């Protein structure tokens, strides 16, 4: 297992040209200070530097409150960092844009739209003709396993189904980067496993760049090419671990694979050593 300390310049600094994959997202010395109600400054993120290669599946793993969501929101352009800069394809991020598609733990579906209406929303906004947007959206709804539910309203769906719709809604406008913030965190274990499998299948098909926030070690190892381990107070990167497991990954094979098990155990031990394993976010 290759464990790289966070200070290493290998993935911190500007990408070197000999790398085959090119950097799509660069986070450069980003810090985030929040004002707490006691009027004290709270350093949520401290000097975060991270480069994400195009087409990579990168997980951000850490205990609750270590700033995972904040980091994702900065990349999304929903929050602007107190200092430092985040870039996409060399351009400083100044706000949200359709090149970065978020999927939130809270689903955040439009409740007044049907499943199909939600999925069509992005393409329609981008000026795709209604008939074309509908055809594409129907295909996406089918891809996330919701054929037959096109005309259901979000309130009529289970949590897992809502998250499938949210994923389809984001995929529908073809963002280059998926930003997923504990998307399966609110789901029961069984549904969560199924969605992880489905997400992997979808991802292995078109290899979009994914930045995936989770506090589950298994989830991070199962899905990712790279796991960014964060620690708390202040939120900073502890370690970045490359997950060298073959793809396509099949859950039943992987769980029996000693390499997978070693990653999980090692990462858990590293969190245990600093006694800061988070249980929820």
């Amino acid at each position, binding site marked *: 297992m290759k464990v790289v300390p966070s200070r290493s310049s290998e993935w911190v600094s500007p990408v070197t040209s000999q790398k085959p994959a090119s950097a799509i997202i660069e986070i450069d010395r980003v810090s985030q200070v929040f004002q707490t109600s006691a009027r004290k400054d709270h350093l949520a993120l401290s000097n975060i530097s991270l480069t994400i290669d195009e087409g990579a599946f990168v997980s951000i793993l850490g205990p609750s409150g270590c700033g995972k969501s904040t980091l994702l929101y900065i990349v999304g352009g929903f929050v602007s960092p107190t200092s430092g800069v985040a870039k996409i394809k060399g351009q400083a991020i100044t706000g*949200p844009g359709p090149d970065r598609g978020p999927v939130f733990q*809270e689903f955040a579906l439009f409740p007044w739209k049907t499943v199909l209406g939600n999925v069509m929303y992005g393409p329609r906004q981008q000026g795709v003709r209604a008939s074309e947007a509908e055809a594409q959206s129907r295909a996406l709804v089918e891809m996330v396993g919701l054929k037959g539910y096109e005309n259901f309203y979000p309130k009529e769906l289970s949590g897992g189904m809502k998250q499938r719709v949210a994923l389809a809604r984001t995929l529908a406008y073809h*963002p280059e980067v998926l930003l997923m913030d504990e998307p399966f965190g609110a789901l029961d274990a069984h549904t969560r496993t199924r969605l992880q499998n489905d997400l992997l299948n979808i991802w292995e098909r078109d290899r979009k760049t994914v930045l995936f926030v989770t506090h589950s070690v298994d989830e991070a190892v199962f899905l990712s090419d790279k796991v960014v381990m964060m620690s708390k107070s202040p939120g900073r990167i502890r370690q970045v671990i490359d997950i060298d497991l073959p793809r396509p990954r099949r859950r039943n094979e992987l769980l029996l694979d000693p390499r997978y098990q070693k990653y999980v155990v090692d990462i858990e031990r590293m969190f245990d050593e600093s006694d800061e394993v988070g249980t929820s976010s």
Partner: protein
Amino acid sequence: MMSPAAVLKRAAPVLACIGLLAVWQAAALVLKNDSFPTAVEAIRAIPDILGDKEALINILASLRRMAMGFGVAVLFSIPLGLLMGRSRAVAAFFNPLLMVIYPVPKAALMPIIMLWLGVGDITKTLVIFLGVSLPVIYHSFEGAKAVEEKMLWSGAAMGLSSLQRLVRIVLPAALPEILTGCRTGLVLALITMITSEMIARQSGAGNILFNALDMGQYDTVFAMIIIVGAMGICLDAIFERIRARLVRWSEPQFDMPLSFS
């Protein structure tokens, strides 16, 4: 097929009306007072009023003012309330103003408005406007404030500008709350309509009512009360139907059978 409970639920308002009229009838028969006609006498006077051309014109004029006041108030208050709910600066600017206006009975402002604008349609419509605005602003504000931020972020990521987000996300998301405010506003419109005509006696349903009172035509007074009341009940029922249609997506999917109702 409706279950007996559902039939009873549907019939409940009608039964309540009949019950009320029966109590009225009994009380009037017992009291035998000139200024308290029986329910039957009052109901008998209704066709006379509705058959009178002048009275009809008056009532329609009332309804027109009410529709104007309500319509303009809604068109003005929803955008204002939504903006206040989404922008701290807008809320900070308008909040003190609204807090001062809120507890003032709008009819109490009528003498001043009459002084400036006369006793015509404009004054009365303005008072209705004022009466309707506040609940609609308040509910739009609360609705807009409660819109989930992640929903707006999702919209922003799709490329919606802040104005588009206000119209295409905040407005529909807050619609259930907005319509609750509008329903209150509609009843208030009726109340302020009658009140305004009571103060500026010139035309309208309120004018008929108070003229009849002056002339001691008590059956007409009570008939007008029934007519105005029926108007209120009908308007509310129609509005409720429209509201329920518009926000079907937010209501529980199935009507819970309330076994004790």
